[in-house]
């Protein structure tokens, strides 16, 4: 018999970026809020204190801060006919664990989508007709517009403290920013980070090529900053241990540095670490959640009653919890019906590594998000009809995390060991820069998430199963970027360079790290037959469950997700405060 706790108004499942935001907003509304976080409690001091963070093996290679597959993982397969096998050790993506979630150990590349990315299907239909959309491509509109979200992008950027240069202030194009971005109501809260050598080389070359370079918007503070919650950031010192590490310097925006210090002071907020939610409990007709069942730090099963359940457990875990709890109809790729698990998508990236004998890059000097970008080949800049694909990328020259175990690119043909390897290492380390493309990934009928029939976790629950592979449309997109990057690479005049892009025979490889930008599976939209959530991230089926995170994306953006994830959390919170609380029930009538 599970123990039952006293009820709370709101239970937050997970305490990463999204639920830290929700905690702030819902305590503001006077509610009594409890967060349950499966991992350890963590804070800058003592957990990320210098010097212990500067340990590449422990954090960068053995993933000390991330989810341990032994405790939590999923299975993966390429196609519906295959048997999925477990993601036994981490590789392609690195979900977070512990207070702060992946917001502790992200890099901080912080983007807004281009406006048309949020209404992609309509945009395509209006400009080229529905015929150019391949039959198996299941892209949709988000159901919320850029203009509606603008105030929330703006606020998230102020809370997180982003360093950057606006390219479009209220419709006026600004010198030095991204001329292809959507309008913004104000400048970034901090100026861009200082520029590294690779940034300068790339920016000069790109301008010569007629492109429009600008500094990557960074969740790494470029100066001392106080956010709207009174939380303080100090200037990033380019420590070189950013992605996969907690910030030792109060400079990287994270739930800890930007929100939790303020939130923990509120006496209508509480959190419990080492408390893993097993499922959301529903009442007998399945239309209302009654609370959640979790395993407490002592291993006891506990029922936590709550009036409102907010899933902010990271995209993959949100979908897993919905499938395990019976919230919404599971998606069936055969019939195309059902919604939970539908439209899982990822990120289509590629890149070039450039070797210069006589240039010194000092790759260990780098902020998480220092880099120079061009967005001239973005989603809105490409003529899909003419190019024969749907999508786009931003192109970046980033110098970050130059630690030697995991960041030792060598020219093609260099030996993997022996004396020749040593020579190649000596010749290459410090003399290398990269140009990458970070691109969209569309949604497809047979790329989805469901429950695995063969594998279980320690609690006996089925693991979630991911069915995913690369598709020709997205390969055409990345091959287009390859040509662009080839030209840009040559223009920099390296002694040697090496291109690495997916091709038509590429299958999804779970081994090398790609991105932790897993999206979809609990998508938002305007129609309950094609989306799991309405435009306010509310479950269509269980009205007191709201689902945060990139699981809401109907297909993936060209950008890193967190700018949109943060804005959507504030957008959803406003709807809860202003519409749901006065009148609990579905916010959109089906």
């Amino acid at each position, binding site marked *: 018999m599970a123990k039952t706790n006293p009820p709370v108004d709101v239970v937050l499942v997970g305490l990463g970026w999204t639920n830290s935001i929700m905690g702030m907003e819902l305590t503001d509304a006077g509610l009594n809020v409890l967060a349950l976080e499966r991992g350890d409690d963590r804070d800058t001091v003592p957990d990320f204190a210098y010097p*212990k963070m*500067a*340990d590449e*093996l422990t954090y960068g290679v053995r993933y000390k801060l991330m989810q341990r597959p032994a405790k939590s993982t999923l299975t993966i397969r390429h196609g519906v006919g295959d048997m999925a096998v477990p993601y036994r050790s981490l590789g392609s993506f690195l979900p977070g664990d512990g207070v702060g979630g992946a917001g502790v150990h992200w890099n901080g590349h912080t983007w807004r989508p281009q406006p048309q990315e949020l209404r992609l299907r309509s945009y395509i239909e209006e400009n080229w007709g529905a015929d150019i959309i391949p039959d198996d491509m299941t892209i949709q509109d988000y159901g919320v517009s850029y203009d509606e979200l603008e105030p929330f992008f703006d606020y998230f950027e102020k809370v997180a403290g982003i360093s950057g240069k606006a390219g479009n202030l209220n419709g006026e194009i600004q010198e030095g920013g991204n001329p292809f971005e959507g309008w913004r109501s104000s400048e970034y809260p901090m100026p861009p980070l200082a*520029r*590294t*050598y690779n940034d300068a080389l790339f920016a000069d070359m790109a301008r010569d090529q007629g492109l429009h370079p600008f500094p990557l918007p960074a969740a790494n503070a470029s100066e001392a900053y106080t956010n709207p919650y009174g939380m*303080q950031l100090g200037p990033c010192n380019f420590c070189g241990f950013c992605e996969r590490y907690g910030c030792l310097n109060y400079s990287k925006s994270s739930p800890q540095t930007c929100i939790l210090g303020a939130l923990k002071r509120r006496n209508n907020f509480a959190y419990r670490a080492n408390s893993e939610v097993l499922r959301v409990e529903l009442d007998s007709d399945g239309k209302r959640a009654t609370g959640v069942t979790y395993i407490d730090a002592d291993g006891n099963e506990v029922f936590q009653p709550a009036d409102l359940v907010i899933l902010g457990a990271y995209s993959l875990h949100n979908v897993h919890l919905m499938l395990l709890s019976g919230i919404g109809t599971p998606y069936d790729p055969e019939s195309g019906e059902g919604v939970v698990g539908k439209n899982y998508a990822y990120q289509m990236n590629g890149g070039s590594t450039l070797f210069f004998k006589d240039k010194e890059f000092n790759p260990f*000097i780098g902020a998480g998000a220092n880099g120079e970008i061009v967005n001239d080949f973005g989603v809105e800049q490409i003529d899909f009809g003419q190019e024969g694909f749907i999508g786009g990328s931003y192109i970046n020259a980033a110098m970050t995390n130059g630690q030697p175990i995991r960041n030792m690119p060598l020219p093609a043909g260099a030996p993997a060991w022996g004396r020749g390897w040593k020579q190649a290492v000596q010749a290459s380390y410090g003399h290398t820069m990269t140009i990458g493309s970070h691109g969209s990934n569309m949604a497809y009928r047979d790329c989805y998430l469901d429950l695995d029939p063969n594998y279980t976790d320690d609690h006996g629950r089925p693991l979630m199963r991911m069915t995913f592979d690369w598709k020709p449309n997205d390969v055409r997109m990345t091959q287009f970027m390859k040509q662009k990057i080839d030209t840009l690479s040559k223009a920099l005049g390296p002694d040697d360079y090496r291109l690495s892009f997916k091709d038509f025979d590429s299958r999804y490889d779970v081994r090398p790290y790609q991105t932790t930008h897993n999206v979809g599976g609990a998508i938002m939209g305007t129609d309950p037959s094609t989306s799991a959530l309405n435009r306010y991230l509310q479950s269509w089926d269980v009205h007191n469950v709201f689902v945060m995170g990139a699981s809401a994306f109907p297909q993936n953006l060209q950008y890193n997700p967190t700018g949109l994830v943060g804005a959507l959390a504030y957008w959803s919170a406003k709807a809860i405060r202003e519409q749901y609380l006065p009148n609990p029930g579905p916010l959109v009538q089906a």
Partner: protein
Amino acid sequence: MSLENESRRRFMKGALTSIPAVTLGSGVSLTAPADEPPEQLSDYQPAFFDADEWAFLLAACDRLIPSDGDGPGALETNVPIFIDRQMEGSFGHAADWYMKGPFPDDVSPLMGYQSPMLPREVYRAGIAATRDYCVREYGEEFTALESTVQDEVLEKLEQQEITFENVSALHFFAFLLQNTKEGYFADPIHGGNKHMAAWQFIGFPGARGAYLEWVDQHNTKYPLGPVSLTGERG
């Protein structure tokens, strides 16, 4: 609220308010004396490997990162000590990995590690099988072979030209190579990279972690040597 992390939170709040954010982590103040000097490889008693396995490991590491040419080799940098410690730690035991069955055969390598064997078991079986192979093929132990022949054996493992009954030669070689490079470049606190010699060789400053004044000094080699987590300076 009377939650279990209440007192910890109160403690943390106190800790936070007493440390001005900007002074933390900026400017490395490593005044603490360096730890114990690193072990001598020749005196080291391995915890996991037996004497024959240890001899094999030393010989193999010596080929993967040899001492000749510029830069230190795996043996001068105590890489085998690092590997022995890894075998005893969570890596060797795959403690963080999902290791439940079923383990189907013929899974695409793109799906990552799919064997029920722990890395330490792969080492044990892989070393035994490679030694047997050398005795069968060349009439001598791996350790007694000419270095060119040792390289040939390692290449055959790498290229999957040798297959073993009870262990994947590919997994064995992949772990051995990965761990050798890790031991070479990881902080000395983990047993290898003795005196940060591998960092000095490539110009990586280790745990310094504070470079603000260096960001815009473009195309200029960073002049300072490395520091380690225990405060050793190179």
